């Protein structure tokens, strides 16, 4: 009797759980573990794999190709993060008031967020076309000779940063706007009574009380920007001459063009470890500046 009920209970749990558990195990957790194993092998998918120990990781450490990709990824982050954060915060501050048309502005600013990276990249590749793009035409109209954008090694990554920041501004804005709206008006009123100016109110009320939202959006943006790929692939393909190669673009290249499955897996794990480390570090540092009221 009891055993029968226990069996029934287990069957019910299995019925509800397995449809999500099995796919997650087969297509996320399993590959995750397999990827770690693969990173110690040399395997081109054709011949049987051979165990090479830490060779892949040691090679990565001295591979100028991979080092360049890491540096370009960092360059992307350093350019993109401040741009998208300051821009998104600015927009959120502008829209954080009762304002005729604010629903329209919010919707317009969010539109690029829901557009695919491929479309955004294609549209910006055309806007920034060195010869016939409208951006350089507009610059020419005011007497400036526009750069070669994505065809110029020095401008390829800035072009990608520009398109990426344009796409993600609305995302940062929405998160920070929600954070701003959660700050009670009373604080500002009290500060105004005490004679605090606009800057003082921003510095001592808005920024500290917004810090949980800031923290969230910075973590998400940082994790995402380590994984930058789509816009690089479409706009420059990592070029010209490798000038905008990034980590994920190298993973895809090594795995699916050079069939270096083990080496590509080692790259994946370095990327994962870096993301994990940076996230943990942020969580440690948050105690210093994030203010959970």
């Amino acid at each position, binding site marked *: 009797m009891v055993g029968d009920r226990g069996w029934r209970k287990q069957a*019910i749990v299995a019925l509800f759980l397995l449809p999500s558990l099995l796919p997650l195990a087969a*297509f996320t957790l399993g590959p995750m573990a*397999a990827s770690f194993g693969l990173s110690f092998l040399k395997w081109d998918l054709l011949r049987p794999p051979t165990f090479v120990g830490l060779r892949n990781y040691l090679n990565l450490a001295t591979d100028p190709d991979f080092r360049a990709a890491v540096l370009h990824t960092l360059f992307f982050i350093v350019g993109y993060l401040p741009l998208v954060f300051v821009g998104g915060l600015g927009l959120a501050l502008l829209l954080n008031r009762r304002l005729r048309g604010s629903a329209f502005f919010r919707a317009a600013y969010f539109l690029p967020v829901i557009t695919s990276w491929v479309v955004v990249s294609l549209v910006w590749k055309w806007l920034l076309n060195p010869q016939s793009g409208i951006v350089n035409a507009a610059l020419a109209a005011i007497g400036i000779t526009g750069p070669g954008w994505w065809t110029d090694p020095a401008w390829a990554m800035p072009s990608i940063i520009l398109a990426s920041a344009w796409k993600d501004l609305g995302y940062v804005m929405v998160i920070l706007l929600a954070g701003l709206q959660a700050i009670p008006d009373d604080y500002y009123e009290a500060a105004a009574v005490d004679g605090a100016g606009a800057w003082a109110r921003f510095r001592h009320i808005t920024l500290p009380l917004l810090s949980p939202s800031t923290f969230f959006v910075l973590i998400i943006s940082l994790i995402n920007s380590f994984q930058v790929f789509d816009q690089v692939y479409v706009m420059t393909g990592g070029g010209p001459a490798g000038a905008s190669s990034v980590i994920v673009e190298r993973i895809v290249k090594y795995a699916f063009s050079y069939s270096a499955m083990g080496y590509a897996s080692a790259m994946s794990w370095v990327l994962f470890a870096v993301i994990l480390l940076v996230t943990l570090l942020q969580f440690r540092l948050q105690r210093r500046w994030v203010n959970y009221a």
Partner: protein
Amino acid sequence: MRSGEGLGLTATRPIALRARLSAHHLPIANVVLYALLVTVALVMLFPFAWMVATSLTPDAQLFLTPPRLIPSPLEPGNYARVAETFPLLRFVLNSLVVAAVCTTLQVATSAMGAYAFARLRFPGRDALFLVYLATLMVPLQVTIVPLFVEMRFLGFVDTYPGLILPGIASAFGTFLLRQAFLELPHELEEAVFLDGGGHWTAFRHVVLPLSGPALATFGIFAFMASWNSFLWPLVITSTQGHMTLPVGLSNLQGQYATAWNLVMAGATVSVLPILAVYLVAQRYVVRGVALSGLKG
């Protein structure tokens, strides 16, 4: 203190405070504010307008200096041309099939899993939930090589199962729906159990009908994520017969590097469904994207 309330409300607050707080909402400040907002709106919307304008530009006017903002004559035939020279409709169909199947299955499997975590008691439940949460931390980039090897072993490279299988469950969806289910009162389910119904009845006839907004939020999110996804379809497809729209578009641009009017026509086609969803269900769209921190 918020503009738009106007001076009519000053009577409800101390006048000195009111004046000080609204100092930066004087008419002139409002003009500056609106000028800023409109400028930014132009920056955000112009690329879309330019995409549509280019898609309607005749070949001969594509490389004019200075470019013509509104092409004349308009050339809607570009859409027919891109569909003729390129399997654009096939890409649209593939994207629709993959997004529809993935969304349906993700919502179904996530809702069931969420019910298990929110309402069933079993050993190891909390630990297992942590494992689900942990998979949220694992980017596709880390699993993509073995995932491809796995699909190759199963014979699913360049097939619909290969495109769809990795997207039939979602840890994020399970997490999101669990939160929603936890907020539902237990009483209604207990009524089901008193009537002799089981968990399946409670799930189907009480929990699901009461969770409409959460299911819609996640469903729309899942559809958009699938419709826009690029990396996995890029890796797993190799022939145009199975490519989804984003992969096909990037392919189109590679083949017709200077036919920007055709490329922009394809891009416009791929934006339309998402735009339609956004206009109809903006609230859910924004919520889903904001909650997930979705990449792409």
